[in-house]
């Protein structure tokens, strides 16, 4: 471990001595007892025991060990400034700080004496994106499990949690079918037709969909892997001085090509003007959605829908034609990768091929017996008069459905002894690392270091982490970790009301996604401090999104870093993606947004509302009463107040952004009032001021992010015994100035990431030591 307990202890004592200068001496009777008996006991006494707490039981130093759970909760409330509540005299700040430091120090002392428990990670099935990525890295085949496999269930907000990733017969069927398809594609076994075919999707027979003004879409099944010419038919013309537009082409939602297109009258065509653009590219077989459209086309927005499809007034897209397949180089690459020798040359070559493949597919060296049992498939195919290559293909199919491939299983040397805490093997570490940062299998460098037994060396490990973060495959980390942490994946699910939000469309939605992805990747790559997430004065925009934000001088479809010069935007909470997923289809919700900030930024769980809760009067918002007036009414109910006092102010602070994140100063006919007062008494008037306040909660945010990322990295929920690791990571993170990469290094070096133990009932040594990490049973 990079952070041993000595350095932590030193950090603690250092912090303690620094504080000692301006704080009262730290012992229980002076630092804790007075506040408890004077301030807390006013409500948390035998009679009232507000919130189920009676401090009388906590008036002795050893209560910190005996009632650890209770003390953890208290510490939480004190750190967040929620207690003492408004209206109760607050002890002077140094006294509060001394109390917090003392209790933290006691926890630390106690935890130092506990042998660390790294927990056990259950055999983990690859989830859909891990499957797709692994197939890609293993065989160079683009397979999209997201389309073909049932949705993976998620736990703790992530879909890579071993315990909830189940296998059903339906999924097993899909695995078998997928293995067949993938093996045949990898081997290039699907012969192409002798002549290319032509298939056209055209507006006149309604086989294209018009998804937006100037954007068309067609669902097309590509029958064979191969190169295709894709042709875009564009009738019509614009005025003689019309500017060229950018034609963009998407496959399954991903932008794959842009090209300029002239829109002014051509000299060649006198009537019935028509032009075509085309692109030749490799298309993987399967059902795909193809979309083409002009982007940043301001002209079309000035037209009525009728005029937009008038050939005399506009140039527009009305057909997509596919011509192909043509033989492609793409497939040969994957074939070459598999056929490292000529399989016809004999058994020795077949064994070599299978040994190499199984080694990679199982992410560890394959045994001789395993290779022999795979070779049986070659014999089987041969016995039926098929080629050796067909046999290899069958063996690949088999490899792709064994649990050796589909699961990541870690072995404990002592499977019955949960007290035998041990370092996981380097080979297991390599997979933990690659699925954490790449959502895919280790590459040969990482695997090689692991097999040479060098990976656990801290310097080697750090170099690998650094290399992996810089690799393009780290995009999966942004997509899967950030996509779920920030709930950005839900952008594909939400359906804002097009009447209320006419700007909403696939182009804007994709731009929102891209902004957050690029922002996250930047903070990671540039090792920016975590505070950038809360209030960075920069973001990433293209013309479409910049226009939506009202930020001038950003042109073109490409995203670039843009400095934010006004107080309107800054940090994640002002990004349209976040603001959209935390809204209802027709309106904003201060509750949803407040809950979003608490859950995802401040790491505070809010219990759900009781049933029969009076809902918001939707129709009245903006007409009879402002949203704020309505919410204030709501909060007058004491039953609602305790939670809503926490949530609502944070939501109100974001009221200047509408339900798709556009800046506004009025909601209906009422001016937006985005002021609020947090439970700790601090108040703000604008989103910018709220962000400044959230900055003071950086330690809380860091803890929240640590817990989420550790959950994601381990593929399991956190338990009380993980608290020590979370604390250690946080301390190191604070010392680094909250640099984002430090968090990743710290997680990789933490005990739960590098160590393991057998899967057996939790050992007694952690009894009673409950943490602030989410309890396994969701509290409500």
């Amino acid at each position, binding site marked *: 471990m990079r952070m041993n307990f000595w350095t932590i202890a030193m950090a603690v004592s250092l912090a303690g001595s620094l504080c000692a200068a301006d704080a009262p001496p730290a012992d229980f009777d002076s630092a804790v007892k007075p506040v408890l008996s004077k301030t807390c006991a006013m409500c948390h006494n035998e009679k009232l025991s507000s919130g189920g707490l009676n401090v009388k039981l906590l008036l002795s130093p050893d209560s910190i060990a005996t009632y650890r759970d209770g003390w953890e909760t208290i510490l939480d409330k004190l750190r967040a400034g929620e207690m003492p509540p408004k209206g109760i005299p607050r002890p002077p700040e140094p006294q509060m700080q001394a109390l917090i430091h003392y209790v933290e120090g006691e926890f630390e002392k106690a935890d130092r004496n506990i042998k660390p428990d790294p927990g056990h990670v259950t055999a983990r099935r690859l989830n859909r994106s891990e499957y797709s990525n692994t197939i890609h890295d293993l065989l160079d085949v683009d397979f999209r499990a997201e*389309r073909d496999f049932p*949705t993976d269930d998620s736990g703790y907000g992530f879909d890579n949690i071993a315990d909830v990733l189940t*296998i059903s017969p339906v999924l097993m069927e899909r695995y078998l079918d997928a293995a067949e398809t993938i093996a045949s594609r990898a081997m290039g076994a699907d012969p192409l037709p002798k002549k290319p075919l032509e298939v056209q*999707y055209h507006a006149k027979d309604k086989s294209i969909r018009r998804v937006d003004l100037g954007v068309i879409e067609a669902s097309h099944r590509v029958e064979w892997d191969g190169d295709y010419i894709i042709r875009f038919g564009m009738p019509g013309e614009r005025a003689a001085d019309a500017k060229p537009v950018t034609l963009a082409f998407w496959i399954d939602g991903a932008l794959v090509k842009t090209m300029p297109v002239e829109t002014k009258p051509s000299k060649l065509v006198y009537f019935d003007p028509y032009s075509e653009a085309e692109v030749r590219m490799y298309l993987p077989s399967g059902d795909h959605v193809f979309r083409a459209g002009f982007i940043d086309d301001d002209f079309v927005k000035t037209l009525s829908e009728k005029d937009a499809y008038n050939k005399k007034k506009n140039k527009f897209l009305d057909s997509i034609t596919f011509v192909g397949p043509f033989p492609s180089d793409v497939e040969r690459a994957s074939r070459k990768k598999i056929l490292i020798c000529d399989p016809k040359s004999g058994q020795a070559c077949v064994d070599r091929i299978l040994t190499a493949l199984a080694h990679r597919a199982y992410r560890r060296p394959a045994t001789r017996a395993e290779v022999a049992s795979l070779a049986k498939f070659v014999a089987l195919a041969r016995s039926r008069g098929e080629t050796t290559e067909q046999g290899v293909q069958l063996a690949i199919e088999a490899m792709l459905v064994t649990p050796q491939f589909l699961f990541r299983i870690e072995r404990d040397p002592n499977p019955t002894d949960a007290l035998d805490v041990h370092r996981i093997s380097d080979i297991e570490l390599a997979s933990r690392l690659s699925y954490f940062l790449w959502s895919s299998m280790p590459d040969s460098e990482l695997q090689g270091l692991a097999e040479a037994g060098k990976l656990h060396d801290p310097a080697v490990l750090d170099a690998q982490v650094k290399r992996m973060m810089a690799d393009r495959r780290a995009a999966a980390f942004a997509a899967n970790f950030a996509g779920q942490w920030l709930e950005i994946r839900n952008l594909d699910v939400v359906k804002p009301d097009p009447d209320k939000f006419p700007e909403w469309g696939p182009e804007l939605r994709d731009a929102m996604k891209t902004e957050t992805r690029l922002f996250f990747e930047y903070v990671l790559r540039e090792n920016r401090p975590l505070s950038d997430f809360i209030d960075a004065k920069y973001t990433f925009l293209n013309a479409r999104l910049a226009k939506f934000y009202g930020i001038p001088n950003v042109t073109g479809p490409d995203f670039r870093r843009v400095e934010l010069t006004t107080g309107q935007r800054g940090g994640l909470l002002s990004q349209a993606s976040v603001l959209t997923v935390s809204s209802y289809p027709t309106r904003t919700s201060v509750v949803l947004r407040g809950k979003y900030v608490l859950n995802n930024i401040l790491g505070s769980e809010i219990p759900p509302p009781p049933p029969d809760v009076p*809902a918001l009067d939707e129709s009245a918002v903006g007409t009879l009463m402002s949203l704020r007036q309505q919410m204030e009414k709501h909060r007058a109910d004491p039953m609602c107040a305790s939670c809503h006092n926490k949530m609502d102010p944070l939501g109100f602070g974001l009221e200047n952004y509408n339900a798709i994140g556009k800046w506004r100063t009025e909601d209906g006919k009422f001016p937006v009032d985005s002021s609020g007062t947090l439970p700790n008494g601090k108040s703000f008037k604008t989103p910018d001021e709220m962000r400044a306040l959230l900055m003071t909660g950086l330690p809380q945010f860091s803890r929240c992010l640590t817990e989420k990322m550790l959950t994601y990295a381990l593929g399991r929920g956190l338990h009380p015994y993980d608290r020590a690791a979370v604390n250690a990571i946080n301390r190191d993170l604070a010392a680094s100035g909250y640099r984002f990469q430090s968090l990743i290094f710290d997680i990789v070096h933490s005990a739960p990431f590098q160590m393991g133990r057998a899967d057996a009932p939790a050992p007694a040594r952690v009894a009673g030591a409950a943490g602030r990490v989410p309890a396994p049973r969701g509290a409500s």
Partner: protein
Amino acid sequence: MITKKSLPRRTFLRGMGTAVALPFLDAMTPAFAATTRAKPPVRMAFVYVPNGIIMDGWNPDYEGTLGALPRILKPLEPYRQDITLFGNLTHNTGRALLDGAGDHGRCCASYLTGVQPRKTVIDIKAGVSFDQIVANQVGKQTRFPSLELGMEDARQAGDCDSGYSCAYTNNLAWKSETQPLPPVLDPRALFERLFGNGMALTPAARARENLYRRSILDFVTDDTRKLETGLGPTDRRKLDEYLSSIREIERQIERAEKDNAQIDPHMEKPYGIPADFAEHFKLMADMMTVAFQADLTRVITFLVTHEGTSRPYREIDIPDGHHPLTHHRNQPDLIEKVTQINSYHVRQFAAWIAKMRSIPEGDGTLLDNCMIVYGAGLSDGNRHLHEDLPTLIAGRGGSHFKSGRRIVYRKETPMCNLYLAMMDRMGVHVEHFGDSTGRLDTLDLT
């Protein structure tokens, strides 16, 4: 789509010699072909809608013979002779019972399992759902023991309901108490599952595929057994799940080999998920019809959308999310919108029923031999009530089921009593299920 040159897309099933035309129930179906005048089998399906129903628009103000139906049920009025409407069926296990909030998660998980699910986001536990108990027994005779369908993709991120795992709201059927069966959402995927990838294989090619698949299954079973040694209990559980799925596929291959024929569904293979709700529903309904008609399965569960869903219904000009609307605070305009959503759902269902009833089978119709339950896990979605759950059965479950009635039972009659009665008619005899207190009576003709 215009194909300028002839496109030899690997020939679609239709018109191929190997394909069997529908309806073919009397012509083929090994399951009951042994006796010459076999009685058609009884099938059952569940169609589940979320977030409760506006009960004023559902419950008629009378008992007994069905006449004019209330607004939400109106689309079913032409078929009222085939409907049985139940009153006062209750799922007590959907209630909090000291587990606090989370009625949406709970009511969905307890709906077919009859047990209160464990409140957790991680170590999920409910019970074996009764459709799976039936599937375990009657499913041996069909290619698929059961089918699980749905229409709404699971939420991709965030939590689901108040400390209840998303697994509880994403699934209706539970194969074991820890293993829910995820529904197939994509009509294309369902089509491929039922009818293959839409391409006809020669018998020799099919035999080859089955042989190879078998050898792969043997290989992985062997591999898994070796892997299992030295693993702890939770790791083993994962591999057991894997093995049980493998065995399921083996059984499917066996059955497919027995009735060595492909089925022509008389429909084009769908392309993915249609954006339009009604279109999506119709595709799923068409395939359910064929699956029943061709005896591919006898048990289907269909989770239309998820509990707590905020799906808007722009198809009928409702831009607001379904769930937020159901907390309507007794506001007439909001109640109206929920009522419209409820009616819209029933309209789609009624169209399916009409189709099922248009297909002759034996001495009656396909519908006669089915029990298709339409229902919800909550009655009043505003207050999260678990009593008097909106429940109806379309079909007669064979020939001895008296429909065309509304039967109101004693208050708090367990829903599981209905399940016991349904299991009887499926030929599965169980004494007790969930919190059942006995069999639902007065269903029969007598």
